[in-house]
């Protein structure tokens, strides 16, 4: 890009958020009903527990165009399923080590404990993360290979996926 400043100012990060049903998702709901405004860059996926978050989801999100991934769970000790959030923490810790080794900036993934009453924390974390990822710029992964498209994308979406850079040569 010749005009870096311009391209940075028009870049809107795409962040995929995985929020647990019992705490963080409820908190996001609260932020909404309380009419708190926050960056519109986050697409929330509700999961039953942060312990359900398979690290494959994070890579899939990056692969399909996310610039950052935010994970929200209950505070330690508050998990609806006793220990799911600890499991999330263990996986996240190793996933971060792995991503660092793969050259993906640490700020692109974030794990936060947000209780059901903490609508303001949802607002703050989303705003902070949007700005952090905006500063990093977009994540340009090498285009998806056709064999990955074969394995991952439902039949009816394949043509689109290939059109968006699914070929590799």
């Amino acid at each position: 890009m010749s005009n870096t400043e311009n391209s940075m100012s028009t870049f809107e990060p795409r962040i995929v958020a995985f929020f647990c049903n019992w705490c963080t998702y409820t908190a996001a709901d609260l932020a909404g009903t309380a009419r708190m405004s926050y960056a519109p860059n986050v697409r929330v996926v509700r999961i039953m527990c942060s312990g359900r978050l398979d690290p494959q989801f994070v890579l899939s999100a990056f692969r399909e165009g996310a610039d950052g991934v935010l994970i929200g769970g209950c505070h330690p000790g508050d998990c609806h399923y006793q220990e799911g959030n600890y499991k999330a923490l263990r996986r996240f810790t190793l996933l971060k080590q792995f991503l660092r080794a793969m050259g993906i900036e640490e700020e692109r993934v974030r794990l936060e404990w947000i209780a059901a009453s903490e609508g303001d924390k949802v607002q703050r974390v989303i705003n902070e993360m949007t700005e952090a990822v905006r500063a990093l710029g977009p994540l340009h992964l090498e285009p998806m290979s056709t064999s990955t498209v074969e394995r991952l994308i439902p039949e009816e979406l394949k043509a689109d996926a290939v059109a968006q850079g699914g070929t590799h040569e």
Partner: protein
Amino acid sequence: MSKPKVAFYWCASCGGCEEAVVDLAEDILKVVDAVDINFWPVALDFKRTDVESLSAGELAVSFINGAIRSSEQSEMVHLLRDKSQMVVAFGSCAHLGGIPGLANTFDREALFKEAYANVPSVDNPDGTVPQTEIDVPEGKLTLPTLWDTVKTLDQVIKVEYYLPGCPPPVKLIKNAVDAIVGGQLPPVGAVLAPDIALCDECDRRETKPDKLSIKEFKRPHATDIDPEKCLLAQGLLCLGPVTRQGCGATCVKANMPCTGCMGPISRVHDYGTKALSAMASLTDTNDEQEIEDILAKIVDPVGTFYRYSLPASLLHRSYMPDAQEGNQK
């Protein structure tokens, strides 16, 4: 009826897969009886023109091992694809990228720099690196290009079946040949091995505790390994729970943990993150700092969890945003 024609070819590989074919021992005579080998550069004197002279689809099967990382390999597998009714990706490298796939943590420039400048035994004062063409008095000479990114076979050409393993176990090769000759193949795209995790066929299965938990990840060279007990129960990073079976747990029988050469079972999209997830979950503490300390003992997460499958992974390669545009081919 004439015998079906087959070809064997190798790309970025070590030769172990060819060795595995020879490991069929006297059964190789049955293979030779059943098929007509039309191309096998490692063992028999065939040339590229022998393949070129075949008509399209004349080869019943091509068994191709090795990852694809050069223009020459790409050209040859495209040629074989045109001449074959069926292509079998033979071994971990063709299936998932294999050990050569770990080159995807670098780019070509870095690889050349290491191999042709940094290695202490290299004497290369002019810093010469491989060129793709050079002018000599007799004319222009050309050489194949090395790619920045190592690819799996199915990222380059269409592949019908996969024989996993580093190298594929003899038993699976035999089953595959029988299935091909007998016309009893599973649906296209299948991996020709059982679709269940290795622990299921492991001799140490009985010693695996109901709940595995690990306080310290140990490395094989620094540990006295009990030859009977489940390796995970001993704190060794054994990838049996996430790896496809079919090898007979040969590494575990030799008292070494599974490193995952057979790849994932069919429900897993990304082997490495699945393995990472399984191992991290076993960490036996809820304390944030302690979790970090325990997991820090896993020194090389990429090489450990993607030892054979980096090119087949969702990321394919290391992220190098600063690399020259178009460099990551």
